């Protein structure tokens, strides 16, 4: 049995009986360790080296506590809230200080700058009523 075969996990159950040892021995030539004994060691080292940043990121994520998360939120949320409150206060203050518009009654508004007399006044006057022509409109 080759070195590669010894390291390979031995399967449980009856499949091993079905495993053709001739075929297994032949296929063992495809194992890179058949010609390069350090192949799997190097492979393993390379994978772990490439995986190091992702593993570090995962460790960092685990280290972050709830308090850390809240603190990080507070760093942005509190100044924003303070700024918003200040803006709202400023707008409110400016709103109070503005001059209020003068109140004008409807009647007064209708008569303002209108010359002449009103319809009842005109009807009551003892004036000769000039002939009136009515225009008819057809629709």
């Amino acid at each position: 049995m080759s070195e590669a075969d010894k390291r390979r996990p031995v399967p449980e159950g009856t499949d091993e009986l079905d495993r053709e040892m001739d075929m297994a021995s032949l296929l063992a030539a495809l194992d890179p360790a058949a010609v390069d004994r350090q192949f799997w060691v190097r492979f393993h080292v390379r994978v772990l080296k490439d995986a190091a940043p992702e593993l570090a990121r995962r460790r960092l994520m685990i280290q972050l506590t709830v308090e850390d998360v809240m603190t990080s939120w507070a760093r942005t949320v509190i100044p924003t809230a303070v700024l918003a409150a200040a803006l709202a206060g400023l707008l409110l203050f400016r709103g109070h200080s503005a001059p209020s518009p003068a109140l004008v009654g409807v009647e007064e508004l209708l008569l303002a700058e209108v010359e002449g007399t009103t319809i009842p006044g005109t009807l009551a006057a003892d004036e000769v009523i000039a002939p009136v022509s009515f225009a008819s409109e057809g629709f």
Partner: protein
Amino acid sequence: MSLKESREPTDGDLVRKARKGEAEAFGLLVERHQRAAYAVALSVTGRPEDAEDAAQESFLVALERLEECRSPDRFAGWMMTIVRNRSRNLVRREALRGTEQVPASARTGEPTPDVATEISELRQVLETALSRIPEVHRQIVMLHDLEGWKHREIAQLLELPSGTVRSHLHFARKALRQELSKTAVGADTIRKIR
């Protein structure tokens, strides 16, 4: 169950620890499955250097997507699915690039003592023989006969009935023997490998 077995962490245990960034746990997962990953990758790509790249990349992809592994105790099957997909993508990319196949003699980069040379020759013959059988047959024969996977495990991985896996295995071996019989692979080489 022996004491040793009861102390050995399951894949599920290791996956849960690796999710927390425990390098040792991830290292154990790699150690357990690197051979099978390589075998699957080789059965898809047919080229050792591509198989190595695909297997390595697959472990990194698996680590990044570890939360997507819904059944950590079935890590092996999930992992091999990633390996298959990565390997197929690699084959597609290589096909688009039109890369030339590297001769087997240039792959090892090792001094070539007699046995190593014979193994390299046999490897070349095997790679050629394997390239002539369907991908699913290659995966089954390599996982079963090289990596010692059970029919049930292969069936789960390939989403095939266990009986179909047995049948594929039978035809794969038969086809491989036929292909090998056409070459000058001697019994000496086989004996030396043992």
